[in-house]
């Protein structure tokens, strides 16, 4: 859990004293019950036994109340652990006691480290490949040979303010497309793009990279799955890829998405009709942004 990180609210000294106080309280309560169970044996007269018993009982009860008071005082000193759980929801997975059968948390950490490394390597590789240009002019080679492949900035960890700025700029670029940004669960942004009165698109991002999209009609319930256009949008987000410049990627994706404003008005460029099997032209070409039916695009 919060292994190395000491949250500022917790007083560790008082914490350990409180644990000791709990142990003391437990032992004094046990003594009370032992006293009740054993009674008094070593006095001859009945009165003596009774008095001795009552005295011992009173003393054990007093010790219980003293220990309880001590524990309360210490618990006030301990303070609350800070509310900002640094690991959010994934940290709760690590609390699972049955680690053998469901090693979810360790697998999650490994997957996360792997994807980070992958992104880093992809950045390095694209930097190196860009330097090896296909032109054979000597000038180019000379210049690039001097440059060491510099460590690419980790585009995975961008400050959220930067992401907000990029999205705002794209929002202003297209008048009929409005983009609303929110961060409901942690640091990844979730965009709700409303395209005129035609479509609503939910885009989930991971810093500036688009992770997943879902496309819904304007008056459809947002929580049910949709069909064709969602598939096309997922294809688009896989198509527009550039590890170095993620904001260009986002911009080109939005431009592609904007071509859907004429979803119901544009006929298919290949067959000239509006409907094919009851569907309008749902495919937009990635370069020319022309409308095609899904079956016509080959």
């Amino acid at each position, binding site marked *: 859990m919060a292994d190395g990180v000491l949250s500022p609210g917790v007083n560790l000294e008082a914490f350990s004293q409180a644990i000791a106080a709990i142990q003391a309280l437990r032992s004094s309560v046990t003594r009370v019950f032992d006293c009740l169970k054993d009674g008094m044996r070593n006095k001859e007269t009945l009165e003596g036994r009774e008095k001795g018993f009552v005295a011992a009982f009173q003393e054990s009860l007093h010790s219980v109340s003293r220990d309880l008071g001590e524990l309360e005082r210490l618990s006030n000193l301990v303070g609350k652990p800070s509310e900002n759980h640094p690991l959010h929801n994934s940290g709760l997975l690590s609390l699972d006691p049955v680690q053998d059968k469901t090693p979810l948390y360790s697998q999650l950490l490994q997957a996360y480290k792997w994807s980070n490394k992958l992104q880093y390597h992809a950045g390095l590789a694209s930097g190196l490949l860009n330097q090896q240009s296909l032109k054979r002019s000597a000038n180019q080679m000379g210049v690039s040979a001097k440059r060491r492949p510099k460590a690419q900035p980790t585009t995975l960890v961008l400050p959220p303010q930067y992401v907000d700025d990029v999205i705002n700029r794209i929002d202003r670029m297209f008048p009929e497309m409005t983009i609303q940004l929110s961060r409901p669960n942690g640091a990844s942004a979730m965009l709700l793009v409303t395209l005129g*009165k*035609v479509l609503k698109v939910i885009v989930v991002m991971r810093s500036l990279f688009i992770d997943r999209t879902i496309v819904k*009609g*304007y*008056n*459809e319930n947002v929580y049910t799955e949709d069909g064709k256009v969602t598939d096309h949008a997922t294809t688009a987000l896989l198509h527009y890829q550039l590890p170095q410049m993620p904001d260009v990627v986002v911009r080109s994706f939005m431009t592609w998405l904007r071509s859907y404003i*004429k979803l*119901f*008005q544009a*006929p298919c460029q290949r067959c000239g*009709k*509006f*409907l094919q*099997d*009851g*569907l*309008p032209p749902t495919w937009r070409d990635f370069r020319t942004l022309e409308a095609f039916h899904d079956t016509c695009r080959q």
Partner: protein
Amino acid sequence: MGVTCVTQVPVAEGKSVQQTVEMLTRKLELLGAEKQGTFCVDCETYHTAASTMSNQGQTGKLMYVMHNSEYPLSCFALFENGPCLIADTYFDTLMVKLKGFFQNAKANKIESRGTRYQYCDFLVKVGTVTMGPSARGISVEVEYCPCVIANDCWNLLMEFMQSFMGNHTPGVPSVFGTKHDSIYSPADTVVQYMELFNKIRKQQQVPVAGIR
């Protein structure tokens, strides 16, 4: 509620209303549409009562109270060129209380009943329009659910209607002209039905032999 077009299909030559409806539904089923139950749209007419008319002798206005099975909990009340009110089903009982002001013309009650088909994103309703015991015509309603702007998908709707209605495809409904990019609402569908019913009422007052 998507963009809807309501139109009338004339009865085929030498055939009855029933047979024409069957021809249409067969064409729809060939296209691949699935039957999804029935629908009913009905319309009652109310006159403004004589006692409320002023001495200048204005003609009484006609008010139509309509129900649409697509919106079972609502009741639509509209004047011919005027506003349309969407109310609860208790509106009918309210009209009974307003007997002094609005009188029901029971003979003018007209309704359209038929089957409801679904094809991809289209909802097609083919119904027989009846006034009293006699069938007067055929109404076809086509709705394209994903689109809510009327003028955007007119071409698409027309292409679909041509595929099963052939030459009887109508022109742009008059409500589309006034919409201009505002969102299509159920009241517009009901207005189209009202216009259709009025047209049918004015048509053949004498039942033609083919209808029987």
